[in-house]
């Protein structure tokens, strides 16, 4: 993952982009926690809401894979189908960890 490239796609300097990604990680973790909690409570509506939020913010920064996964979660939850959600959550956490690792470099 090339943060400089992702930033310049958005017309941003690297440091501006890094600042945004740091903020993104905080909000994304928050979204994923909410999503997980809602999943444990079997609250499909709340799952969809948190997934929707994550889909938008990750998509905006160019993290398309993460945005796609969130989209699947949102759609599944919309159909009240929570079967795959825990796997999707796992995958979301992995993506976030990767992004964090890039920032650390």
């Amino acid at each position, binding site marked *: 993952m090339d943060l400089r490239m992702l930033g310049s796609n*958005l*017309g*941003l300097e690297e440091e*501006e982009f890094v*600042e*945004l990604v740091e*903020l*993104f990680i905080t*909000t*994304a973790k928050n979204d994923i926690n909410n999503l997980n909690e809602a999943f444990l409570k079997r609250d499909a509506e709340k799952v969809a809401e948190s997934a*929707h*939020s994550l*889909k*938008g*913010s*990750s*998509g*905006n*920064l160019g993290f398309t894979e993460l*945005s796609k996964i969130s989209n699947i979660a949102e759609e599944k939850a919309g159909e009240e189908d929570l079967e795959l959600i825990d796997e999707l959550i796992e995958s979301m956490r992995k993506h976030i960890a990767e992004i964090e690792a890039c920032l650390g470099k």
Partner: protein
Amino acid sequence: MIEDKRLLILVVDDNPLNLKLLETTLSKDGYQVVSADNGPDARKIAVDEKPDLILLDIKMPKEDGFKVIKKLKESSATSTIPVIFLTGVSDIDTKLFGFELGAVDYITKPFHPREVLARASLHLKLSIATNSLIASQAQKLRQITEAQTSMLTTPAMQPQAKFGVYFLALNEAGGDFYDVLPISEDIFGYFVGDFSGHDIKTSYLTLSVKALLKQNSALVYQAHESMKMINDVLVEILPEGKYLTACYARLNRKTNQMTIINAGHPPAIFVPSDGKAVTIEMKGDILGIFKEIYFGQFNIEVKSGDRFYFYSDGLIESFQEKVTWPIGSDELIAACEDVRYVPVQDAPEKIANMLLKNNSKMKDDIVILGIEV
């Protein structure tokens, strides 16, 4: 005006990341940015800071974007600020609903910052162009020195508009006037206005407003938008203390939709083809005084044979000395009922004869305009 300051954009989104991304992108491009993460704060900032443009997220907890724009459009202080919606939803009904509430555009999430910049600058340009159009129209009208005589339209000249009119001007410089505007084959605009005071300036202003009506009644403008543009120009050109009250209707004979705008004018009378005549009471500001203005607006689905009457206050104030408004309009409603089966071309004159028969000395001009669907 606009040139003197940096353009200010208000961004509203409950997601802090989106907010930050928009802020960064817009301020990099030279805009001043203020942000809010909820509806009530956004509305307060809109009133206090008067941004030139608002980017508004639809999906927010408690007060969503639709509620916010509704309140913004209802308040005269914020009603003219262009609003672009940000949305993750792309279904057409949601979008049309937003346009209906007064949004100028949509940006679908995930958005690309460059698209946001392109749309923001497009709508700022449009908004600036509208403002300078108003300024240049005002300029042109100021330059008219000689008032050419303009013919008043008659039912014979526009039979498709299906109207009748009674017009009595006390003197050359009367304050009352009317106009009927062909907007498209099936859409017509009907206007009755009354300037305060009777002096030579008034008759020149009458011509100005008729010119403005022609310029600003194009198909793309809704009735309240036409009136708003006319108000903006009048605010610039009217001498102090002078104002205009008016009633403007836009009738689409194809979709049977009628919109009536009232700006401080006596209420229109509605005579349904199958029911009793009623007045359409609406509150609305007079034209030419306030830069930010609120109009009464009435939308109705009409059917063939329905009639509407617009008139000036001379009618109900002069046919009887010291008549109070409610009594005056009761007699007027009765008269409108009486002429139900008279062809609409002749109805206004009949109404005038009924109301004025006992009154020899006229104190004001009189206009009655009758419209049939």
